[in-house]
């Protein structure tokens, strides 16, 4: 538990405004100013920089408003950046504002008032105007009153700048936008949101959309955008479980998508645009009755018009290329070709306009006239419907259905007067036969059953681990935790699951006497999605009293997505260790900060082996005091593991006549091996011996090997294999750390410790218990500490004893048991304990 209570007690703001930005240093200042000057003040403002290379960061940080949070990550695209804001948002309402758009000072006041007044609304959107790059107003946009069928059936869903979403009603939606889409992820998002609740227009101009050369919408009106729109339409209707009255809109929406693609391409590729328009009519000859006049399609291009466009296209594109090729041909070949082309009329002057007859753009709309009431589909039956051939069926299904046909025909004859779609026409009967399928029993269901069969019928305490191993710091922590659980709980109720793909198939059913299931043993080829679904089902079926995730990615994903549901039955716990950042300060992928912010309020506890990381998490994720109280330090025991007096495991410091330093840790790139190399170079009379395993990682050791006074014995089985008497000091170097277990173990062995103030190290190593060098420790500081140890062995002995006193207090087996017992809910109810 964080005793200092530094975690701020903050109530979530009502609104979260997110601005994804990329290289908008010139315009983002105006956007920020317009948000921060809102008359409604209860909001948080997240600006997420998608890896800008200009001065965007400096502009944003220049504001210094406490409601403004600046975050930065490597370039991921606008949709992914917006999704990060969505995931981090705490507000009941959510808005995305592009970094070149503006809002009026009363924007939030007005739109929040509307949402508050009508709690049934999911989305509210205002009217807005279009401004140019200099901020001059060009056009007023009065949006239609959207409803679901208008949005889907017309495939034009464009609530614009200043739209507010009721985020609190979408706890199961983990991303707002599909990052697969680059040009219109917002359209896709609105389509899906239209299934979730009503939209409402606020007929007031509260925002400005900037149209300028850098705007993606203007600059990229091209084929990729058109193709993406078609993809969005198609994939939207592939969504499983769509309501039937949405599915019926499919062909209308697909036709509208084709028409929209035609509009997009009309300037750059009129032939293709005409083909899209033809396709639109082919899909649906009629438009829905409530399509507004300004969204009516152009007339269907006839064959003659297409031919004309084809000729123009040939002239404009193909002939230009052919001409460049022909110019390289000999004149005697080129001239007859030219004459032939002239006779065909292919080399006539190219007309100035390549566009088809007037095709006014559908949006923006400049009218707020009420739209006709939706849902009166007045179309004629497609002529080709009755000619649809029956699809072939599987033999057994065919026989079963054929046997049923007399009954079906009889029923349909009876129903046709009251349920028109069940008229027993040849078309309907053919469709029935063509569409027949069987209730699927997907293999995932079988895998789930097999996984559940592997498990004990009762699970009191479930550990989710990435793999079972004895190598590594977190593995050591886990092994000692498992031993503690065996002491403190009924062993029969404990279970370990390794759901991640990192655990190889071993066939093991037990680990140290505890029931064990590795999902790779069920099927090693499963992807993460399948693994998560199986774990999900296990958690539902078994409903363990305690679920503790220690570094399992699948476990974290399950927590992130479903912690609220699991928490109804299980006390959820997760471990966090360290805050690893990449070289440029960006977060490394799939560390705790990708998961914890999204499920922290549903966890019964967050466990860490040091205060520092817990404080950091509490502060970073805005967790209030209540979340702070659920954070617990569980220190890793290194002495008294066998159950005896822990003091017997401590060795006194023995000054060595030799100048030899021990380096012992996992050998990895982030361990600042460069410092060791330069230290060895600076102190040629001192020897450095480096113990540790590099695992699967490839680490460049050439700099170290170049030093004659450095030896790298590498991996070791246990500390007992290392002759500690020969060393006078322990040098620890790293750039990112939690609380290294090796450091504690070496302190127990009686060596003075020199380590950097990184992660939780400063909680153990101080100027009283060792030599703590600053975070970015220099070679000189390490050398100075070594000189002090050489010069004053008595002081070194005193500091070692002080460190060991800390070990006795906090790092024994009994201390671990006490820590676990003090965590509410971790060991279950008192009558569950062993």
């Amino acid at each position, binding site marked *: 538990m964080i005793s200092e209570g530094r975690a701020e007690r903050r109530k979530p703001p009502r609104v979260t405004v997110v601005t994804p930005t990329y290289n908008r240093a010139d315009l983002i200042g105006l956007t920020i100013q317009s948000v921060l000057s809102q008359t409604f003040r209860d909001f948080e403002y997240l600006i997420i920089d998608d890896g800008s290379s200009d001065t965007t960061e400096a502009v944003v940080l220049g504001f210094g408003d406490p409601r403004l949070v600046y975050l930065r990550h490597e370039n991921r695209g606008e949709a992914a950046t917006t999704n990060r804001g969505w995931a981090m948002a705490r507000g009941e309402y959510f808005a995305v504002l592009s970094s070149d758009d503006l809002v009026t000072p009363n924007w939030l006041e007005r739109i929040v008032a509307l949402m508050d007044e009508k709690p049934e609304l999911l989305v509210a959107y205002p009217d807005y105007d279009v401004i140019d790059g200099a901020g001059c107003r060009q056009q007023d946009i009065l949006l239609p009153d959207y409803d679901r069928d208008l949005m889907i059936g017309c495939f034009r869903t464009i609530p614009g700048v200043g739209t507010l979403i009721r985020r609190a009603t979408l706890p*199961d*939606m983990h*991303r707002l936008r*599909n990052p697969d889409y680059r040009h219109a992820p917002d359209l896709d998002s609105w389509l899906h949101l239209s*299934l979730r609740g009503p939209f409402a227009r606020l007929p007031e101009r509260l925002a400005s959309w900037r149209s300028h050369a850098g705007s993606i919408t203007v600059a990229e009106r091209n084929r990729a955008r058109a193709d993406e729109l078609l993809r969005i339409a198609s994939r939207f209707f*592939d*969504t*499983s479980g*769509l*309501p*039937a*009255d949405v*599915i*019926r809109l499919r062909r209308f929406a697909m036709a509208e998508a084709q028409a929209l693609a035609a509009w997009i391409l009309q300037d750059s590729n009129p032939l293709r645009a005409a083909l899209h328009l033809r396709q639109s009519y082919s899909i649906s000859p009629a438009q829905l009755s409530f399509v507004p006049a300004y969204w009516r399609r152009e007339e269907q291009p006839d064959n003659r018009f297409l031919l004309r466009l084809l000729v123009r296209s040939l002239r404009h594109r193909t002939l230009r290329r052919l001409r460049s090729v022909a110019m390289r041909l000999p004149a005697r070949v080129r001239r007859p070709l030219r004459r032939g082309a002239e006779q065909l009329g292919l080399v006539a002057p190219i007309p100035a306009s390549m566009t088809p007859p007037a095709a006014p753009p559908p949006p923006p709309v400049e009218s707020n006239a009420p739209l006709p009431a939706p849902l009166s*589909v007045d*179309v004629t*039956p*497609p002529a080709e*419907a009755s000619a649809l051939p029956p699809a072939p069926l599987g033999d057994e*299904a065919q026989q*079963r*259905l054929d*046997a*049923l046909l007399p*009954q*079906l025909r009889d*029923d349909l004859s*009876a*129903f046709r007067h*009251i*349920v*028109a*779609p*069940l*008229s027993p026409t040849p078309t*309907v009967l053919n*469709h*029935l*036969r063509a*569409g027949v*399928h*069987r*209730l*699927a*029993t*997907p293999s*995932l*269901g*079988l895998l789930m*059953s097999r996984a*559940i069969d592997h498990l004990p019928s009762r699970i009191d305490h479930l550990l989710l681990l990435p793999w079972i191993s004895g190598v590594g710091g977190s593995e050591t922590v886990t092994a000692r935790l498992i031993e503690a659980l065996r002491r403190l709980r009924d062993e029969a109720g404990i279970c370990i699951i390794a759901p991640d793909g990192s655990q190889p198939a071993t066939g093991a059913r037990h680990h140290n006497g505890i029931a064990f299931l590795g999902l790779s043993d069920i099927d090693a080829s499963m992807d993460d999605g399948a693994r998560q*679904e199986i774990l*999900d*089902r296990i958690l*539902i079926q078994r409903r363990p009293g305690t679920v503790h995730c220690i570094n399992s990615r699948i476990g974290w994903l399950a927590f992130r*997505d*479903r912690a609220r*549901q*699991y928490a*109804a039955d299980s006390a959820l716990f997760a471990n966090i260790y360290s805050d690893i950042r990449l070289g440029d300060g960006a977060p490394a992928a799939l560390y705790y900060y990708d998961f914890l912010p999204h499920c922290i309020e549903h966890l019964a506890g967050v466990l860490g082996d040091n205060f520092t990381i817990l404080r950091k998490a509490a502060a970073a994720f805005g967790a209030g005091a209540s979340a702070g109280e659920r954070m617990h330090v569980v220190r890793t025991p290194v002495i008294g593991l066998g159950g005896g007096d822990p003091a017997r495991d401590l060795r006194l410091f023995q000054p060595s006549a030799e100048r030899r330093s021990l380096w012992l840790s996992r050998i990895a790139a982030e361990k600042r091996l460069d410092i060791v190399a330069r230290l060895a170079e600076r102190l040629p009379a001192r020897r450095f011996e480096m113990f540790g395993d590099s695992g699967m990682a490839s680490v460049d050791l050439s700099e170290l090997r170049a030093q004659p006074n450095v030896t790298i014995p590498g991996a070791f089985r246990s500390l007992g294999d290392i002759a500690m008497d020969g060393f006078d000091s322990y040098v620890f170097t790293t750039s990112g750390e939690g609380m290294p277990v090796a450091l504690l173990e070496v302190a127990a062995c009686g060596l003075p410790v020199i380590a950097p103030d990184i992660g939780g190290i400063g909680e153990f190593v101080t100027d009283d218990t060792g030599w703590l060098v600053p975070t970015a420790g220099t070679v000189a500081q390490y050398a100075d500490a070594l000189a002090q140890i050489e010069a004053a062995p008595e002081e070194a002995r005193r500091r070692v004893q002080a460190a060991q006193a800390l070990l006795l207090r906090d790092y024994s087996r009994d201390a671990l048991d006490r820590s676990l017992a003090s965590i509410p809910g971790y060991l279950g109810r008192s009558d569950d304990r062993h």
Partner: protein
Amino acid sequence: MTGIDLSVVLAVGREAAALHATLFALRRAAGALAPGIGIEVLLLHDPDTSDLAARFAGDMDAMCLRPLALIDPLDAQRHAVASARGRYLAFLTAGDLCSGNLLTEAMCVIGREDLRHSVWRPEVIVSCGRNYFDLALDTVLQEPMLNQAAGAGLLQSCPYATCFFAHRAVYQRVPFPMADARRDWLDVDAWWIANCLGAGIAQRILAGTALYRWNAEQPLPYATRIGPSTLFNPYVMP
């Protein structure tokens, strides 16, 4: 009528046309039964649709139509089981049309088998759209026998038809999982089927029968999801 053999629990929905169609089909199926078999239809309605239920309540041929107010949408099925008088209970939603032979086949099964260990379903489910021109027809052949392994798969695949009937003892032995519904795991039917399978109660079909589903409106509850899985949640983005 000597007693109630079969209670049909019918979720009234919000459209008179759909309710009328369901009752039409039920009356047709009941008309094919031998005389003396008592059938009641419980019109399960919420406060907004009490007028609709009242409009259709009363005796209709051999069937007794009785309104049943829905107090808690998440408690619908259990409430219906407690209120029904029949030895056997079937569940339908307005817009579901049973085939003309469904009740006849059901009564044949009742006469020859011990129904305390099975839930019975139509052999084929035919779904259709709102109007003829949609041609949104879908035909699903139901599996003759679902086994334990399919139980988990069931929750991952298309939902099994919500039309089924079973002996009252089955509903008492495996109650509807209302606690889960209150945790937002709303597809009570699917969970109930899974639990039935877990309890050794098989899902079986009435050979040669059909159920037609007119998708005039969403059945209750509107927003369903199966367990905490996102695979079949239509309201979560793909």
